[in-house]
């Protein structure tokens, strides 16, 4: 049993031995096993990511009745129909509206929370864990509870408005009110999660930066905006992109918010129907038009890519050149 422990190229003798199965395997091993090690991810991604993606596109090129046997190839007809579909664009506006209404306050609030949690507090770990609690509650349960709170006639918010003598708000029938209600749900659930991510990043900021800033006379607000936020920028970009993906795919909250008949419309006038709900409405009940639904899915994919790009560009602009340094 000869084992080459040196790094020199194999000698002629060794090359002769390379024909022995074990050594041949060893070479194979050196060359290919790294690929095998990373293979599980790619295999899984291929099966659950890439294949559905490509197949959805293939479906979107057909007049695909979910139950029918024959699916007629129609080229890009579904996409052209979508471009002129006012209900689709309505759902795009809803999605973007809810996204902005939820993400902007959520990020600011998360930053503020993280900043608070980053101080010397009593029972620090308890507080840090507590902000995550909304995140581990079931989305459906959250949505049902909020839906009841925002109820038109028996809801708590309208009851409180009534107490102070204000008119009730049509949380489910006024387009902007329903956006706000759904954004509240999203924020309640995700602010703590983002706060923890920001907190982790804040702890990596060297403390001496703050000390020297304090010596130079910077107050805590100034320290926050001039040191914390710029140094957090990569993390903020990450959080914003994750929120973008989640926010534009928003489904459970608005779906559960509207109970009753055909909740998938998001209200009688589609007040808060998001793109995923519109996709579902078309691909499944009541239309069962899988091709059209798939086309919506692809446009959603495109929209997420575009919005994520805009996000990155915006945030880069906002904070000067810090990202260039990493």
């Amino acid at each position, binding site marked *: *049993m000869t*084992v080459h422990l040196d790094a020199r190229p194999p000698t002629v003798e060794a090359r002769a031995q390379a024909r022995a199965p*074990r050594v041949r*395997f*060893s070479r194979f*091993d050196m060359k290919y*096993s790294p690929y*095998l*090690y990373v*293979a*599980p991810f790619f*295999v*899984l991604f291929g*099966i*659950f990511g890439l294949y559905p993606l490509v197949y959805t596109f293939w479906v979107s090129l057909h007049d695909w*009745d*979910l*139950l*029918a*046997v024959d699916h007629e190839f129609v080229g890009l007809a579904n996409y052209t129909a979508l471009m002129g579909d006012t*209900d689709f664009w309505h759902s795009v506006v809803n999605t973007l509206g809810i996204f902005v209404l939820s993400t902007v306050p959520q990020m600011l609030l998360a930053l503020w929370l993280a900043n608070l949690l980053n101080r010397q507090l009593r029972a620090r770990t308890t507080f840090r864990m507590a902000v995550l609690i909304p995140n581990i509650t079931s989305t459906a349960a959250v949505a*049902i509870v909020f*839906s*009841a709170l925002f*109820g*038109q*006639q*028996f809801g708590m918010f309208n009851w409180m408005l009534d107490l102070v003598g204000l008119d009730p708000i*049509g949380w489910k*029938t006024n387009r902007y009110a329903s956006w706000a209600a759904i954004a509240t749900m999203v924020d309640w659930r995700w602010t703590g999660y983002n706060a923890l991510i920001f907190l982790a990043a804040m702890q990596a900021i060297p403390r001496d930066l703050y000390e020297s800033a304090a010596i130079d006379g910077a107050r805590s607000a100034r320290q926050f905006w001039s040191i914390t936020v710029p140094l957090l920028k990569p993390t903020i970009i990450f959080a914003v992109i994750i929120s973008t993906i989640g926010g534009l795919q928003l489904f459970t909250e608005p779906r559960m918010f509207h*109970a*009753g*008949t*055909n*909740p*998938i*419309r998001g209200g*009688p*006038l589609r007040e808060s129907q998001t793109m995923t709900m519109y996709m579902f409405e*078309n691909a*499944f*009940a*009541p*239309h*069962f*038009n*899988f091709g*059209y639904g798939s086309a919506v899915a692809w446009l959603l994919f495109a929209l997420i890519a575009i919005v994520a790009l805009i996000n990155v560009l915006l945030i880069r602009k906002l904070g000067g050149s810090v990202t260039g340094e990493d």
Partner: protein
Amino acid sequence: MGVIPRRRFAAVAVALAGVLVASSACGGSDDSQQADGPITLTVDVFGQFGYEKLYQEYMAANPNVKIVERGTGSNLDEYSPKLTQWLAAGKGAGDVVAIEEGVLVEYKANPQNFVNLLDHGAADLKGNFLEWKWNQALTADGKQLIGLGTDVGGMAMCYRTDLFAKAGLPTDREAVSKLWPTWAEYIATGEKFKAANTGASFLDAATNTFNTIVLQTAGSGPGYHYYDTQNNLVVDSNPAVKEAYDITMDIVDSGLSGKFGAWSEEWVSAFKQAKFATIACPAWMTGVIEGNAGPDAKGKWDIARVPGNGGNWGGSFLAVPKQSKHQEEAVKLAKFLTSPQGHIGAFQAKGPLPSSPQALADPAITSSKNAYFSDAPVGQIFAEGAKTLKPVYMGPKNQAVRTEVENAVRTVELGQRNAEQGWQDAVANAKKAAAK
């Protein structure tokens, strides 16, 4: 020596990757059932079909069969897309599945998903069903029967006697029926009720009432509502639809509706808190009312005649998907559940009105009373209408079109649109939905 561990690692990696691929590629093959061992039949339903006792009976007679029911109490809006997905995937559906008449047309358009019951001797059972109910489940060419009828809706008006008494209206069901031979008189009664300021609305929501009215006007008129029998969309040209819409608008204009969106949590709360006095109720709705209003309201509800003509709203079928592994056994079970005895058993349990003439004539039905509804003779009230009711034809995208028209009604009810705009929306959106 270092070669061996590394090789072992490689082997483990290959094996691991292999396992991952295998486990993700095949989602789990079902080999739990042998040819002659006990078999499990799954029955998929929505709402309340009232089959529990019948299952016990069937299992006792067929010891090799175990029956599992899924979806009891679920909403049709959740159930029907699920069923469609199972059918499309070729996997997941029960051995016997319930299909509501409004969505039946869509399943009938793709009959290859279902076992042709005519191949299993169902033709002999034709006499067990009301003729129109039988024909509803027959494909256009008459060669395939995809379902056997369970219940029909019938129509009545349920009302709360305590609220009626509070408003100074009669509470006896005969006297109440006399209050509203027509919808105009129903509205007039509602206005009296409203003037009494009981703190409750006269009716729950305009959509349920609209559905009732449109099925009446269509049934007594052309025999179809949104689609004519040639499957042309006629929402805008069928006078029956416009008439029903206009009557509903009169109800909305009179401010009688509590605007509790049907089937929502608010609707359920409104039942519990006695926030409305009347609701249009097909036979299957009696079970829903009892479930929503709860035991506290027992004896506070009663059933009167529906204003206008009789008619039918709702009703279902049992079908056997082709994907079932026990088609023969499943068909047998479906036949049992839809036999006249099956209809009677279901009615006694949860109140769905039989679609079998034998069952409708049976004393078990005609003499039955519903304790929850102040001992109303439900059998008599509903069965009478069921034998003579005129069915309404439903076209290919009935469900989608109905959704649009219902939503238009709702926008007017909620003050988002006026009656004229609502009608324009209904027509335009129905056309759009039908074209999808």
